[in-house]
């Protein structure tokens, strides 16, 4: 049965939400205008109530859309394209949430949802700002809803938006299935991309879109301020929201990085991928905006800069949306949304707001108060302004190369084919610039804090700074001398001059140490007087700690799996190319740095089992997710499954057991994963990480032998009686005995069937291996069933083919394959924990700052000022 009603409801809600947003926008604009012109107060109050009602209708409709779409996904209504292409039957509920925003339409909905929530909060907390701010909100909402409305524009061959409620039948068009069976509904969906089946991917997108939504609030206040000629007053209510935006957007970005670190195999948390850059840049600008806003609140400087930065931050969020969703990046990024043909619509969205803001700023520019007073080197505003300047330059340096695909697209519009490609090594290219910006900003954050709290107008601040400067120089010098900071892994200096890198890392380390010390000393002073004011000092400390974590984990990461013993095919490769991957034969220990590592075989994870199960210990069934155990399965001495039990296994996930032994005998095991990702038609390797307090040991698989790629020898027939000695491959084996087990896992054995199992012991260097092939001959004359046995250690497969009851002669078939191996890369990342700790410190500082700024706003509002 096709569930048409729910989709129709959903579509209806989209249309209601779209038009109610438009109507509320018009109504709020009218209220704004009448309030500004001082028209009849009662009249505008009643209009305001009406606008509010329209916005509530809009909000309810948005909740309706979300409910409908989630119902479709969670009830597996595969007649809908969205459910079919983003979910599947076996998906647990928490990943259904991820399915919801895996597609573009769902992620737009998420964004729309946060705006509704913020809209409600703003209606609740504001007195005078409601109408103009909500008018901006409604405009944004109308644009966003137009992306998912999915309506054909009559007369123009153009579809507005892409509806999440489209039926699979309508999406697929004329495929044969629907001709023979118009009511066809697939039994299962195509599933959620396996890479996204990770807990971070459940919360990373909502956090990021919450951050996106948070940039709209200061923007709306700023536009409202310009439109209603309240040039200064918008700063106070906008400030806590801008701080909130920094915190959430920053957390969202880092969650993405953490997911990449745990799941992808490029070996880090940041790859200077265009999509990462596209959110990093607005974040930097928003950080700049917060600083100029604070500077304005305290000394009436930098108001114009605040206007420009707040608007730019929001426009950059729209630009990043355009970059990621229009398909303009092409293959340049790991994050690829489906190209839904929204290119033009996204461009209009961006252009409309850019134009609107530009016009408004130009008209109002000369009315925005500016402080023409000469800034003194000793004023705190000077240092803040300098810091903001460098934040903007850092943003500029990233956004220009990231936009290369956009430049290509623009030139193409003029008929010129451009062949410019992004820089070949983005990590080296961007780091080379960003490291200096980070250094300058770290130093300025330390000095700036001193000027801020000392209120110094002369040289006394520099005098006070002497102590943190000396202290931090001492610490960093000691660390440089006592550790091997001056020694570098060759990888990072591969094609760059050694000294340059060495100096820049050491300088950044010193600058960050200074920032931590300076901000810590300010913090200690503030704690004694008023903890509520310490948000800035704590947040700056957090940033500096993050920089320290980044310097060490990236700059001083070292490849441990360097291939020193392997044969080198080409000697002329030179020093420039590192041989970073190591081959491990099954069960043969190899030296890796100070460890002895051994590959112990391929494993599965099973539901309800705490460990990993050897893939050769279970048998496939017709159900791809159900397996039958071939033997009793234990973990830590406790029995979890008996022979013949059914296990639930996700066979796309293969875990390669890698045992690390230290010289002192202590050991740990890592399970890097390889996913056979059907959706991507490929294999995806994810690392496993051993976390020590001082460093992470990161291990990922770079090459495995495919089951299908394994080459098998032709089957060789062998005849033997029990007790005979045989030659199997290169090994000597003894045919020990025959048993007649009662049953066979996965096979129905009739009492009268002949069912035998041979036990063949193969002698090997370390230990002997028992192979147990079985044979079932049904009495009803049916086909015999063979259950062969495979020893991965020997690369040997043995089947029992026939029994001659007269002679007692057994016929075996022997096949051999190459011995299993994996190729892995192991990297050590020192002090990466400092990066995560710094992130927490930053968030704590931001929370304290948000509370303080919100209280300020509330106080003024309750006084009736705002």
């Amino acid at each position, binding site marked *: 049965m096709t569930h048409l009603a729910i989709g129709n409801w959903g579509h209806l809600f989209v249309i209601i939400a779209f038009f109610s947003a438009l109507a509320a926008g018009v109504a709020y604009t009218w209220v704004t205008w009448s309030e500004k012109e001082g028209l009849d107060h009662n009249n505008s109050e009643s209009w305001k109530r009406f606008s509010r009602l329209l916005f509530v209708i809009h909000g309810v409709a948005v909740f309706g859309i979300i409910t409908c779409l989630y119902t479709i996904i969670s009830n597996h209504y595969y007649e809908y394209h969205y459910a079919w*292409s983003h979910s599947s039957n076996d998906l647990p509920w928490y990943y259904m949430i991820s399915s919801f925003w895996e597609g573009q339409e769902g992620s737009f909905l998420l964004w729309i949802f946060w705006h509704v929530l913020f809209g409600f909060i703003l209606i609740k907390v504001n007195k005078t700002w409601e109408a103009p701010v909500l008018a901006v909100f409604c405009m944004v909402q109308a644009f966003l809803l137009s992306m998912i409305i999915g309506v054909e524009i009559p007369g123009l061959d153009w579809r507005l938006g892409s509806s999440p409620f489209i039926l*699979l039948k309508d999406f*697929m068009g004329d*495929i044969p*299935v629907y001709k023979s069976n118009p009511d*066809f509904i*697939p*039994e*299962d969906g*195509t599933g959620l*991309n396996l890479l996204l089946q990770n807990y971070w991917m459940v919360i990373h997108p909502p956090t990021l879109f919450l951050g996106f939504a948070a940039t709209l609030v200061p923007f709306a206040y700023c536009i409202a301020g310009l439109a209603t000629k309240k040039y200064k007053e918008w700063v106070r209510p906008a400030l806590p929201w801008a701080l909130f935006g920094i915190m959430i957007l920053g957390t969202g970005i880092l969650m993405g990085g953490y997911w990449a670190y745990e799941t992808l195999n490029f070996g880090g948390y940041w790859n200077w991928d265009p999509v990462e850059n596209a959110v990093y840049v607005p974040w930097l600008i928003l950080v700049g905006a917060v600083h100029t806003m604070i500077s304005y609140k305290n000394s009436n400087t930098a108001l114009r800069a605040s206007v420009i930065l707040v608007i730019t931050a929001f426009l950059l969020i729209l630009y990043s949306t355009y970059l990621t969703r229009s398909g303009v990046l092409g*293959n340049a990024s790991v994050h*690829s949304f489906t*190209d839904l043909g929204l290119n033009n619509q996204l461009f209009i969205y961006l252009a409309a707001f850019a134009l609107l803001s530009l016009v408004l700023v130009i008209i109002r520019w000369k009315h925005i108060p500016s402080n023409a007073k*000469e*800034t003194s*080197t000793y004023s705190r505003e*000077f240092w803040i302004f*300098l810091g903001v*300047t460098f934040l903007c*330059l850092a943003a*500029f*340096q990233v956004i*220009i*190369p990231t936009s*290369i695909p956009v430049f290509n697209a623009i030139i193409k519009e003029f008929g010129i084919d451009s*062949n*410019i*490609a*992004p*820089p*070949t*090594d983005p990590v080296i*290219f961007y780091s080379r*610039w960003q490291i200096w910006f980070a250094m300058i900003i770290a130093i300025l954050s330390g000095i700036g804090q001193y000027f801020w709290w000392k209120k110094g107008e002369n040289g006394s601040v520099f005098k006070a700074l002497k102590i943190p400067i000396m202290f931090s120089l001492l610490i960093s010098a000691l660390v440089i001398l006592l550790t091997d900071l001056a020694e570098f892994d060759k990888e990072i200096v591969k094609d760059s001059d050694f000294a340059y890198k060495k100096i820049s890392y050491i300088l950044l380390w010193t600058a960050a140490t200074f920032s931590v010390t300076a901000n810590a000393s300010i913090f200690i002073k503030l704690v004694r007087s008023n903890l509520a004011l310490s948000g800035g000092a704590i947040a700056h400390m957090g940033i500096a700690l993050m920089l320290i974590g980044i310097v060490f984990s990236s700059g001083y990461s070292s490849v441990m799996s360097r*291939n020193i013993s*392997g*044969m*080198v*095919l*080409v000697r002329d*490769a030179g020093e420039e*190319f*590192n*041989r*970073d*991957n190591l*081959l491990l034969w099954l069960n043969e220990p190899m030296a890796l740095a100070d460890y002895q590592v051994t590959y112990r075989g391929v494993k599965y994870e099973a539901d309800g089992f705490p460990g990993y199960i050897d893939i050769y210990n279970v048998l496939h069934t017709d159900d791809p997710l159900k397996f039958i155990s071939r033997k009793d399965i234990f973990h830590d001495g406790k029995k979890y499954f008996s022979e013949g039990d059914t296990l639930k296994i996700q066979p796309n996930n293969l875990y390669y057991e890698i045992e690390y032994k230290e010289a002192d005998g202590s050991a740990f095991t890592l399970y890097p994963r*390889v996913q056979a990702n059907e*959706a*991507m*038609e*490929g*294999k995806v*390797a994810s690392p496993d990480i051993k976390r020590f307090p001082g460093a992470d040991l990161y291990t990922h698989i*770079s*090459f*495995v032998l495919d089951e299908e790629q394994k080459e098998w020898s032709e089957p060789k027939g062998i005849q033997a009686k029990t007790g005979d000695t045989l030659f199997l491959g290169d090994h000597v084996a003894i045919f020990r005995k025959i048993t007649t087990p009662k049953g066979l896992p996965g096979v129905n054995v009739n009492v009268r069937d002949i069912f035998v199992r041979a036990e063949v012991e193969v002698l090997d260097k370390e230990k002997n291996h028992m192979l147990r092939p079985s044979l079932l001959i049904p009495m009803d004359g049916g086909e015999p069933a063979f259950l062969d046995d495979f020893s991965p250690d020997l690369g040997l497969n043995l089947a029992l083919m026939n029994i001659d009851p007269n002679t007692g002669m057994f016929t075996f078939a022997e096949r051999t394959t190459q011995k299993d*191996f994996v*190729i892995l890369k192991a990297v050590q990342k020192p002090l990466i924990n400092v990066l995560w700790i710094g992130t927490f410190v930053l968030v704590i500082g931001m929370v304290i700052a948000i509370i303080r700024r919100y209280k300020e706003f509330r106080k003024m509002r309750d006084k009736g000022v705002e």
Partner: protein
Amino acid sequence: MKLPHIIGLIIIAVAIGVLISTAGNASEYVTFKDAWELAEDGSSSKVHVVGKLKKDANGGIKGMFYNPAMDPNYFVFTMIDNNSEEREVIYYQPKPQDLDKTEQVVVIGKFRGKDFVADQILLKCPSKYQETEVKQK
């Protein structure tokens, strides 16, 4: 000179530096022929070359060598660029696991001697998003 002027000059200088470095570091999409000429001219910059794997009539890949047991960090394959020029590409890393399934390859690197040495190999695999078939049971 006043302080704001000095800062203004610094900003302009850094901005120009950024533009120059972007232009200087931007790579190019070229053919093997262009890449060869660039290397002959002594250019050390790396380029992008787009192409396909060399395949036989049955779709099997030709001219590929990877023997991990001997050297896991040495992989060679034959690539045909958009001008139908055929070249050996050396990659000092393990063979990319999905190379066999790929439709299009982008190699980033430069010529050293007669072989193109790739730093990175980007694969364009048939992606989930081009799904046009519905599985039936």
